[in-house]
């Protein structure tokens, strides 16, 4: 069986995979990083989004052998070692942008890439369009959009800390 070497959340792993093994299967079943989820089989829902070399990819739609030598970041690798949340994670919590939590890892990973790729910031309409590849069945997206809008200001250094949600 082919052998691939991946650096996942800063740790190097060498694993044997089948030629047909998907990246998400390697992450979940071989590395036991179960934060990355599988919500569909047609590359539509985005629950499996991780970062590969800094870009968001749907890990259900890429073979593990294609990832040999790459740097992967999953949801488990976002928060600081002391537990401090990434601004996007913090914004999702503050703005109640998650309910069941199943789409959340992919949603957060997509959102971070979306913000990184738009250094001048996005309007709420642009955020909605940017989330085209991620499905959420719980929230109606309203609070996800608010969370991303708030997080982008922190990530781009426009505000020193997250603007709190209106609800008290």
């Amino acid at each position, binding site marked *: 069986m082919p052998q691939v070497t991946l650096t996942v959340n800063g740790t190097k792993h060498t694993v044997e995979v089948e030629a047909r093994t998907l990246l998400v299967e390697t992450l979940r079943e071989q590395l036991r990083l*179960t934060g990355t989820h599988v919500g569909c089989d047609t590359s539509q829902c985005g629950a499996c989004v991780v970062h590969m070399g800094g870009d968001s990819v749907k890990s259900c739609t890429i073979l593990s052998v294609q990832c040999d030598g790459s740097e992967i970041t999953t949801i488990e690798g976002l928060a600081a070692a002391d537990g401090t949340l990434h601004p996007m994670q913090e914004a999702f919590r503050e703005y109640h942008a998650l309910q069941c939590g199943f789409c959340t890892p992919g949603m957060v990973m997509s959102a971070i890439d979306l913000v990184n790729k738009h250094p001048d910031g996005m309007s709420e309409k642009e955020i909605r369009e940017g*989330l085209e590849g991620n499905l959420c069945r*719980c929230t109606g997206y309203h609070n996800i959009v608010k969370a991303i809008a708030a997080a982008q200001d922190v990530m781009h250094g426009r505000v020193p800390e997250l603007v709190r949600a209106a609800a008290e």
Partner: protein
Amino acid sequence: MNVVTPFEGIGASLRRKEDFRFLMGRGQYVDDINRPGQTHAVMLRSPHAHATIDRIDTVAAKAMPGVKAIFVGEDMAAEQIGGIPCGWQIHNKDGSPMAEPMHPALALGKVRHVGDPVAVVIAETKSQARDAAEAIVVDYTPLPAVSGTEAALQPGAPQVHDGAPGNLCYDWHIGDKAAQEAAFARAARVVKFETTNNRLVPNAMEPRAAIGDFDSFSGDYTLYTTSQNPHVIRLLMGAFVLHIPESKLRVVAPDVGGGFGSKIYHYAEEAIVTWAAGKVKRPIKWTCERSESFMSDAHGRDHVSTAELALDAEGKILGLKVHTLANMGAYLSTFAPCVPTYLYATLLSGVYATPVIYAEVKAVFTNTVPVDAYRGAGRPEATYLLERLMDVAAAEAGLDKVDFRRRNFILPDQFPYQTPVALQYDSGDYHSTLEACLETAGWAGFEARRAESKTRGRLRGIGISTYVEACGIAPSAVVGSLGARAGLYEVGTIRVHPTGSVTVLTGAHSHGQGHETTFAQLIADKLGVPTANVDIVHGDTAKVPFGMGTYGSRSLAVGGSAMDKAMDKIIAKGKRIAAHLMEASVEDVEFERGTFRVAGTDKTKTLTDISLAAYVPHNYPIDEIEPGLEETAFYDPKNFTYPGGCHICEVEIDPETGRTEVLNFTAVDDVGRVINPMIVEGQVQGGVAQGIGQALLEAAIYDASGQLVSGSFMDYTMPRAGDLPDVGVATHVTLCTHNPLGVKGCGEVGAIGSPPAVMNAVVDALRDYGVRHVEMPATPQKIWGIVNAHRLAAE
């Protein structure tokens, strides 16, 4: 130290306790669990809607690498494994019971819908199981199939079950037919309206999964499953299917990624992996793929209805007559029969003082996936029918649609209000939610906005829906008399530990609702324990005494009330202990938020003083009071709760593409007392999104041969962020009068109130075209067709 600062009790928008694990990828969903020695199961499913199984050849498949076992229906039948049971029995008009055909976990001799499981393959890896499933040879003889709701009752239609002649499951009615006919005879106007409530696929983002585990030493079975109600699964599967006593069967529903009703039911795969784990003596994991979910998760809605509304000359409603056909699919899912009857027809009075109602419902079998409750369950179908009918009737009678509603509202001083279809509404204030919603949505300024849209070549419409629904299903004795085969109470245990922290055991189950936060707020509010010191335990039959689970917006109204009752017992016992410690009479001890006080003195004891004394009973009236501080309460509701409100939707249609854009959506709901406003808003927004999805995008479509055409996320239009607007949510509270918290429920109001608001807006946008009605979903293709037909006719 138990000090609640800042305020975390009832009314605080506390950020959720459960979020950290979900945000950091540390949730524990079923597919995240791996048992030592675990094997993997794949279901081989029927590609035919209806066929006999002539032969299943598993010889080659069994010889493939990694295969541990393959089982078919006959293997389970040989061990007297029971059929998947139905939890609700409806009786026909003549008093006879409904047709209730056997539902084998694995098909026996015949398949009845695409996706019906035929065999299970168990192998060391999922890939090996999948490969082997492909190597099984099944000889089918395809039979004619019936998929349409109306088609099922046609003479000569293919028969789904031998035991259900004419595909009729039941022919049921409610209300007073003679009174209805008399009311219609003196009506100034009768408005008739026909509609189909589109079939939907719930599509929780987490696909279903199940792990069966068997301990050969103890004989104990464990099932990990994506369930909204683990105790009910234990009851149904243990007692009716596998014949395992409750003491030998543990069901765990850990983190569950959304349910919306689809994870209430006992599914065949749960029984299959549990039973098979005992055969292969290894844990077995099965995880559904999304395309498999489409053809095996229970679907929702699928009604075909005719309604007639009788009005007097002043536009007052005299009576309502409804005839509905409801599709049950190929087998009866757990609660399927009660959805189009006691959850639908009983709601047909809506928010209106309709003096007489008569409704007939026929349920039919078809060669499709079973249909059961989906977010709202019967109440969205009733609300849609009624609120579209109100708009159609207002238009035909030449009445303003808002004024027509106002004129017929049940008035605040009429509560409790007995409807002619069994329900008694305890409280509500429909005028206030209406007026607040009209104001917020800018109803008065709409015509100016419509004119502005017209200058851009767009068609703008506004739609309103005023609704009531019924939550917290109960009381047990009443639902039992109506056919429920279970009680519908809830159980709560409050365990105050020696140093004052609290563990709550609840039979309700959280799969996105935020119970770990909301329930902790109840404890903080009443016992004064900070939420950080309150842990909510749910979803495990080995930990929680009993429970009926979460559906029908019942968790807070029923489960929260059980906790409240258990807290009352804690306080009562605490007062006796405090009286002893403070050398006072128990009648003189008061309790408020964590402090016991001798009335009129400064003598106090904290809850922690009391819990410590209860567990370290050195100075303790041991002959009179048992040590320990833990209480359990079963709460059986006295009535349903009745949330209601008003939704207003504003849309703009592009006539060139037929696309409908939702510009604004405003919801003003009365969900009773609000514990956590942030969570309530989120629940309403999510429900509205599903309602907009039903109205504009979603449809489970079967072709005439019974193939599911919209069977993946490529084909079934799930609402995406760009399809939806911001959803403005406000609440106007009237308290529930019969539960201790005054709460009504907020999980379904969004999905119930919104579809007619959207569709009334779509029809309003097309008003210049003389359009009376548009069926859901109002896809661009459908709207473009209407616009184009109008243009052609005008040319």
